[in-house]
Each structure stands twice: as C-alpha cells, then as structure tokens.
C-alpha cells in the first residue's frame, strides 16, 4: 500500500487513485480518488458515497471543486511535475475562498523539498512519490522556524509579530 504523510506522520494510504477514466467505464466500488470531471458528470449517482474523493489536474480551475467540496471524502490536487506551481494557489483558494476544512491532499510529483511550501498553502496530506522515503520527507516540516509572510497555516505575517 502506498505511503501517505498525514498529520505529520506516515500512514498507509487505502484510497486508490483513478488516474485515467474512460468514458463508459463503471465507477469502481471501494475507496477511490476520481478525476473531478468524472465526479461532476456523475454527481447525482455518486453524491451519496462516502468513499469517493476527487482530484484536480493542474490545468483545471480550482472553481470546479467549489460546489462539491463538502460532499466528497476529500479533495486532492495533482502536481504533474513538481515545478508546476499552480497547485499552491489552488490550495489557498480552496481553503481561504471556499472555506474548505476537510482533508486536502497533494498528489503526483510530491517531493520532500516542496512539502514545506505545500503545508503552508493549506495541504494537510501528502502522497509522497512512491520511489521516495516518506519517513525522511518528514524533516521538511522542520526546515524553517519562522516565515516572513502570512499564509494558510498562519495568516499573521512576521511583521505583525514583531510589532507585538
């Protein structure tokens, strides 16, 4: 079973990521993460299930998640390449604009050196790429003691703390 960082510790991930979905296929039973468009297309049938999460591709607008955020198991945002940084803005919109409080998972090219930024933007679970050591990746959360700017994890910028 793939590893997942959740609540700053490594756990087994029992959700299955459905990367590709051909039109006409039946939606599988069990815990799955569906492409958001598939979910939207079959929303009426799937809305009752509590074991269906959805994932957003980086070239899709975050707004697709707005209406369905509270009826799915959780939301995931894909990083097709770690250098594709759109997901950071999506995470902040999902948290701060859509007021989503459930699990927000980073999937795809998720690597140690990006976790600090992801966590600051509102991700709270991380499907670290399978060829990497998830335990070692935990140290990313200890990299910085302070941050200058406000973000989702702590909206108060350092300048406010300095002024007391």
């Amino acid at each position: 079973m793939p590893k997942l960082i959740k609540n700053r510790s490594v756990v087994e991930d029992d959700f299955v990521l459905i990367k590709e979905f051909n039109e006409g296929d039946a939606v599988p039973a069990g815990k799955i993460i569906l492409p958001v468009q598939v979910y939207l297309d079959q929303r009426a049938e799937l809305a009752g299930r509590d074991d269906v999460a959805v994932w957003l591709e980086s070239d899709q607008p975050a707004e697709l998640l707005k209406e369905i955020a509270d009826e799915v198991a959780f939301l995931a945002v894909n990083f097709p390449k770690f250098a594709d940084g759109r997901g950071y803005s999506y995470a902040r919109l999902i948290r701060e604009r859509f007021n989503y409080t459930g699990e927000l998972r980073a999937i795809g090219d998720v690597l140690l050196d990006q976790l600090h930024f992801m966590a600051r933007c509102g991700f709270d679970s991380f499907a670290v790429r399978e060829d990497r050591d998830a335990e070692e990746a935990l140290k990313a959360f200890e990299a910085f003691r302070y941050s200058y700017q406000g973000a989702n994890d702590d909206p108060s910028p350092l300048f406010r703390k300095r002024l007391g």
Partner: protein
Amino acid sequence: MYVYDDYDHAIIEDRVNQFRDQTNRYFDGKLSEEEFLPLRLQNGLYVQRMAPMLRVAVPYGMLASNQLRKLAEIARKYDKGYAHFSTRQNVQFNWPELADVPEILAELATVEMHAVQTSGNCIRNTTTDQFAGVCHGEIEDPRPYCEIIRQWSTFHPEFAFLPRKFKIAVNANTLSDRSATDVHDISLHLVKNDAGETGFRVVAGGGLGRTPIIGSTIREYLPAEDLLTYLDAIIRVYNQKGNRLNKYKARIKILVKALTPEVFAELVEEEWSHIKDSDSKLTPELIEKMKSYFTEPAYEALSDNNEAFEAKLAESKGFANWVKRNVAEHKKPGYAVATLAIKRPGHAPGDVTDLQLEKIADLADKYSFGEARTTHEQNIVLADVKKSDLYAIWEEAKEAGFATPNLGLLTDMICCPGGDYCALANAKSIPVADEIMRRFDDIDYLHDLGDIDLNISGCMNACGHHHVGNIGILGVDKKGEEFYQISLGGDSGKITDTAIGKILGPSFKRDEVVNVLDKILNIYVEHRQDDELFIDTFNRIGMSTFKERVYAKAN
C-alpha cells in the same frame, strides 16, 4: 541600512542548513539532477560553461563595508580572486565548487547576506534607484518598501514555482529612472495622491528577452498599506493563468498582452477584493518601523560652496572631468554622490578583484558612512561623500582604477557575461565591449559625444538589456558563426517614455562592429544640433539616415 534581527538570522541560518542537506542528498543520489536544479537555482547556483556560478543577492543594491570585505574573502578563498556585479545589482562568483557552496552561504549569512531566490522561477531580488534617499526629485525613499517586498517574497510558499522568473523594481524619482523600471514584471512608482498620501502607480507586464514589452499601468494609485496584498493578487492571477507549456511565452508580459492590460487589471482587482483586508495588509506602524532603518546618516551642516573643492576643479582638468561625469548632486548641501567606474579595457564590465572590493570597502568606511551601492549599469556608488573629500576620493579611486570619467558615456557599457561564460549565449559579448573600449579611448571625444547608453547582450535573453540601449548590440548565431545585430533608439532613463530600440538592418561580423559603431557616431555628430543628445538626434532624424549610410556600398 536594514539590520537583521533574530528572526532574519534564524530564517537565513535555516536556509543554509536546508541547502546543505539538499546538496548532500544530491551527492548521495537521493535527489536527481532535475530535482536538484530548481533547488540550487533558488539558491543562486547555476551550472555554466566552465563551472557553477553563484549569484549572491544584494537587496536593492545596498552593501555595507563588512559585506564587501566578506565578498572579497570569498572571491579569494573559493573563486579565482574576483567577483562580478550584475545588471540587477547582485554579485556573482564564476568559479565556486558545488561542494563548497553550502559553506559559502554560511559565510555570507554571518554578514547578513544570502543567495535566496537570485535565480529560478520565483520572485527575484527587488531593485531600485542607486541614488535612493540621497537624490533630488524623490517622492520618498523607496528602500523601506523594497525591504518590505524582500521579506514578503522570501520563501513565499505560494510563488516558489511560478511559470517563469519574476522581477520587481521600485522607482521613487520623478526626474529620472535609473533602474529601467518599466521593463520589469511589476514596476512600482511611488506617487502621492491629492490628499498627499503615499502610494504606488502599479505597472505590470514589462520585460526584455525575446519579446521586449513596456509594462502597462494597471492601477493609477494603490495606497502604500495595500502593497503586499496587491502584489499577492497580481502574482496569484499570473501563477494560475501564465503559460506553462512554452518557456518563451511564460513571462507575465505575454499574459498581460494576451488578456489585454484592462482585462488583466480586472482579474487582479477581483482577486484583490477578497484579500485586501487580510493580515498581510501593512500597518502605518510597520511602514514607520521600516523607514527607521533607512534614516539619514549623521550629516554635518555644511555650506554647499567649498572653496578648496572649487579651487581643485579649476586647477585639474582630469578632476573636473571626473566630477562632471561621475559625481552627482546630493540633496544635502556640501555633500555629493560619487560613482566609482569599474569598467576598463581588458576587464569584463562588472568584474572586480578581491583587492578592489576591499578598496571599495575602505573608501566607503573613510568617506561614505561605511556603505556602498551597486548599480544597474554595473558600477559602484558612494552615496554620501563630502564635497571637500572629492579630490582625495578621486586620487584614491584613480590609483585603484575606478576613476575613468566615463559615466553615462559610450564606454560605460552594460554587458552580459556572454559566450565566454554563459551556456545560453549565442555569441561572445565581453570581447566586443573590450574592442569598443580600446577603440574609443579618447576621453575628450567621449565627453564630446555625451550621454549614450550602449548595451550588449550575447543572446535573445537580453541580460545586457540591449533593447533599451540607445545603441544595442545583440549576439546572434548564424550557422555556427557569431554575428551582431545593432539596434538604435532604445531608452530606459525616462519616467514615462521607456522605448525599445529598433533594428538597424542585417547583422555584422564581430570585426565589423567597431567600424559600424564609428559610422553611427559620425552620423550623429554631423546631424546633432547644439547640445542635442544622441537619443534626441536619433528621434529627430530617424532610422533611415543611419541605415542608408551604414549599409552604403563602398565606391
């Protein structure tokens, strides 16, 4: 100058340790080349033709003498004894070993310096006027705002992986623009509103490179306290909508142009409406606190007329020439701004030796409150010197090779490292600069020609800003041979009329460049009226006169 507190020290120390760990993991094979690339770039580390190149941030160009001495020490210990000042006010080392870089960063941290975000697709060092705080015509000192931007942009978690690099410049001067502000991704012009309050005119979507574009004003007045939330809104829009498929179309300028500035501005305003009152909104207390780091040094009350200075001016033509070109007016009576010209034949523009760095530090300590500044034109400024000290400074600068009285003249060129060092370049640029410097070495002729910006880039990426040079030279590759394309009419010195140069015609071989330049200058001299500058003559008579003469068949 800004002084680190415990927080700043902790953040930079943590960064050094993080990079040490990343470098170790790279050497251990736990980070692939591709994965390490953006991590090292965000620490200013390129891998160039010969060796890695480390770019150290000089926030908005300010250097204290102890920092200059540390740079000299690093140049000696880890490099071949010299460093290079870039057009974005930073310092580069061309020969460090990759394995030494964490240690170099640790040494830099001891003098409150770093290499954070000096490269990579993130927010880069914010630049401004090298005469900030000391010149006439300034709305307010721009540096407190530059430092606010520096802190906000440092490790900004949302904007570490933008579509492309992102550069911000701040201008506060109403008389001239010394930092090519409007060819930046965002340029901020300090302005006052009708109520006398300070704010910014916000310009977005400028840039050089393959598609040079002058930025468009997207907001006429932004209150100063809204600075960071508005920047967040602009970059959040860009981060989501910028082109990520084609790196040549990835800069914000392409997005602003494609959407039109009006539509882009609407998107920004919409985004901003949600975040403008967040905790990131600045407070008057913070702005005041930041201003307290950039207060005036302990100026003496002096008369603006200094007899000894005037006597030396009358006595020495060399000194008078230097003062005319390299010394600028200071807002305080009896003080002046002296620029050390560090370009000279046989040396790449912007290159300085370790000993020269130490000499600059000594001059700064002795004459200018221990501070120096780097400039967009790759020179060094002593911003607070007494007029009565100018003669002594000139003599010391002359000895160190810093006193060529060529500031703003033809041979005060901007030049990228070019094909000698850079893996991207199509052609060499330093030898061209060198040939120009050697050919045009008659200082009286250079003074007679007056202000001319000559900018040289070794490729389309335009690091030498050839587009905004009055005369621009661009290296191009034609079937493996180096050619040079010449453009005329670029201009970056004006507040509202930044202009992109136009191409003169077919490109030239390297050995033809100097002669072509000579022809161009002769045409100018023949046509100029009174004290008309090159750029003004060009704008009056147009390209055709130049084109006809330069390409006329010899008979």
